């Protein structure tokens, strides 16, 4: 599974309240969630399509709202690469089928750089700057969830197959 996209740089401790404010949680509709992504930061959700977010430490800290990774995914974010993730966000991201990768080297990517993230190989290539970096690939069961498009799909497949 490979993801290609242009980098959107963010800082440390990006919390779930800025990803999707609480007042928009009364829906599970991914399309309507996507229109409010990063609203408190004043970012245009249309600018998220095809992006790979590259962030610092503790991305997704705060609430357990699964709508946070769901909103990012539905806005078209292909992958999040961060120095570290808050644990519930990490689990939720995998569960909605949004790859979340921990990689320290990612910090040396700039806004707009083109990245290729190879999830199975555990490899990030910065095509703009020409560097390659490795990360610890996921265990098989996590890869299966991502490839199924999320935990719920994985459960259905597991049961039907």
């Amino acid at each position, binding site marked *: 599974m490979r993801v290609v996209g242009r980098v959107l740089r963010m800082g440390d401790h990006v919390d779930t309240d800025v990803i999707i404010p609480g007042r928009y949680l*009364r829906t599970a509709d991914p399309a309507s969630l996507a229109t409010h992504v990063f609203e408190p930061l004043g970012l245009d959700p249309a600018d998220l399509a095809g992006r790979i977010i590259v962030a610092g430490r503790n991305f997704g800290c705060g609430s*357990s*709202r*699964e709508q946070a990774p769901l909103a990012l995914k539905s806005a078209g974010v292909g992958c999040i690469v961060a120095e570290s993730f808050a644990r519930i966000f990490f689990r*939720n991201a995998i569960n909605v089928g949004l790859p979340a990768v921990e990689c320290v080297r990612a910090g040396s990517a700039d806004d707009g750089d083109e990245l290729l993230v190879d999830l199975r190989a555990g490899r990030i290539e910065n095509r703009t700057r020409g560097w390659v970096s490795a990360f610890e690939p996921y265990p098989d069961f996590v890869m299966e969830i991502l490839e199924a498009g999320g*935990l*719920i799909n994985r459960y*259905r497949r597991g049961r039907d197959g």
Partner: protein
Amino acid sequence: MPTMAEEVLAAKAGREVVPGEFISVEPDWCLLHDGGFLAFRYLEEMSAGVARPGRVVVAFDHICPANSPETAGLQDYVREMVGRYGIENFFDCGCGICHQVMAEEFARPGDVIIGGDSHTLTAGALGAFAAGMGASDMAVLLATGEVWLKVPESIKVTVEGEPGAGVFPKDLALSIIAQLGPDGANYRAVEFHGSTVMDMDIPGRMTLCNMAAEMGAKTAMVPPDGRTAAFTGQRGVELTRRSPDRDAEYLEEMAFEPPSSPMVAVPHRVDDARSVEEVEGTEVDQVFIGSCTNGRLEDLEAAEGVIRGREVRARTLVAPASRRVLLEAAEAGLIASLARAGCVILPPGCGPCLGQHQGVLGEGETAFSTSSRNFRGRQGSPEAGIYLGSPATAAATAVEGRIADPRRYL
């Protein structure tokens, strides 16, 4: 010797466990609130039933009573699911915050509790392994009765020292978070030890464990003792385990002292906590006393002790954490005293903590809150600022209309 988290998980797994390994366990309790509609929707998409309905607890707290037709519709949907799946432990509007209900009615030492909310770890104050997860995980847990976990590494936090006047468990929590950072315990189980912790009553320990979420902890636990037994006693719970000073293998051991002054977290970071002297005098529009962090009887008592006989200058909202808290506070005369001082009494529940109803902040407003988070936009406008502190500091602030040192009122 295993750590507390390892011991509880090993008992559930039926074998020894080591940090880093993946295990599957059957939690004692699966906790959901009104935001649980997403988990139920997934459950329907999965065409699955609820494996162990007797082990599911649902308490409506977040936007209760409903603030819009959509919210009302989602809550009706959850009520319908609760009925369909035979979930008897259902607490509708007004019963209290799910974490408070869990602690008052269900949690016991040694339990594994998985909840669809990041502050599920509050029940660790009773010696349970309690952790929050998202909707998909909750749906699969409902369907199968099981959940996979990575056994966390543990951090031992020992606190020794007598807190001075005006320094409460919330102040200690803010001081620890300021030192550890908002990811200082990410993925870890935090064990709280030391005389300061063991001298705290259960509500204080709940505040401490609750705030461990703001250091990223997966779970936070306090060794059960006589106070735990007294608190859970009415449930006929027996205490089996643990002396607090056993020899376990921790990833890290840290020692803290209570801060010398009341602490206040300034916008927009929980770990940006300062002593009250540094922020005293900051004008405040709204004060909120409540939440799963600080909405218990002892919190209302501390606040009322400051406010009694005075008039509040800031708009002051008080939400008891549960109906039990409301009733006890009413019987003790606290509710009347707070209302007489000009406070707005809200129904048991989350109140304005999550910025959706019952006191949403406008642009440019400043709030002082006893809740756990002051992230940008948390209680309304992204252009509002939220300060966090203890109920006593909140009460002093309410009285003066600006951030105030509670020690002048004690």
